[in-house]
């Protein structure tokens, strides 16, 4: 099973970007490379499933490339490159982040680059973001300057 669950208990999850660099390092260390094509993380803490409210955000750091499937009830910040299938609560693509593939989530905020298929409730496209693909949303916000291309569908 390709499952990505993170340790629980963090005080603020509202600003995943604000997580200190040492915390970022921890996240990166957690990820084990199992195969060149597909990377995945073992589910070390099954209790994390019920702790989505306090779940620590996972981070694909700058310069880090991840190809594969990500599933979590928690949040993910992509500052590096991620290609694959994602199923998450919140996805944040940072200013230099690149996300490609199929994403299904509740909230998605793009400050970098996204291409592929997206299904979400809330979509926020930042002013320097580039979003390209098939997008199904319930609510959308595009900040001035954000670029969005493709098919849009309101659920």
């Amino acid at each position, binding site marked *: 099973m390709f499952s990505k669950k993170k340790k629980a208990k963090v005080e603020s999850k509202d600003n995943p970007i604000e997580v200190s660099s040492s915390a970022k390092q921890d996240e990166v260390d957690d990820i084990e490379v199992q195969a060149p094509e597909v990377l995945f993380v073992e589910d070390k803490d099954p209790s994390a499933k019920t702790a989505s409210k306090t779940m620590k955000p996972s981070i694909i750091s700058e310069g880090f490339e991840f190809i594969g499937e990500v599933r979590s009830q928690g949040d993910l910040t992509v500052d590096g490159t991620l290609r694959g299938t994602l199923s998450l609560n919140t996805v944040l693509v940072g200013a230099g982040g690149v996300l490609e593939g199929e994403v299904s989530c509740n909230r998605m905020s793009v400050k970098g680059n996204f291409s592929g298929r997206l299904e979400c409730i809330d979509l926020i*496209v930042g002013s320097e973001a580039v979003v390209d693909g098939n997008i199904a949303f319930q*609510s*959308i*916000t*595009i*900040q*001035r*300057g*954000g*670029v*969005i*291309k*493709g*098919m*849009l*569908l*309101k659920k």
Partner: protein
Amino acid sequence: MSDEDQKGNLVVGEGVVISGSISVPETATVAGQVEGEVSAKELFVTDSGVIRGKVIAEVIDLRGEVHDTMTASKSLFVRATGKALGTVEYALIEIEKGGDLQGALSKFEDRRKPDNLTPLTIAQSSNSKLIEE
């Protein structure tokens, strides 16, 4: 819109229904219903405004509804009450939360000769350059 200078401007008041092709050299404000083609330099569609047809303008400020095709060669603002359905082309876009945008989106590129009503200025091309960067 200033009251004193209405040259080149159009206001379609609430309750007014127009069908046909409209070209406005300056600002068009639509609070009523328009069926057909609208081209203007600036287009304001108020909460009550509905346009069904092809819309071309440099700047579009949408609080009402536009169905079919919309091209904003400079900027498109979809406000919280705005609804854009169909094919949308824009150079610069902004959508407020709650704004509705559905259909095929593409970025406006100066690839075709637009109708004589919407001359493209240098400002437009420098604008799109900014976004590319």
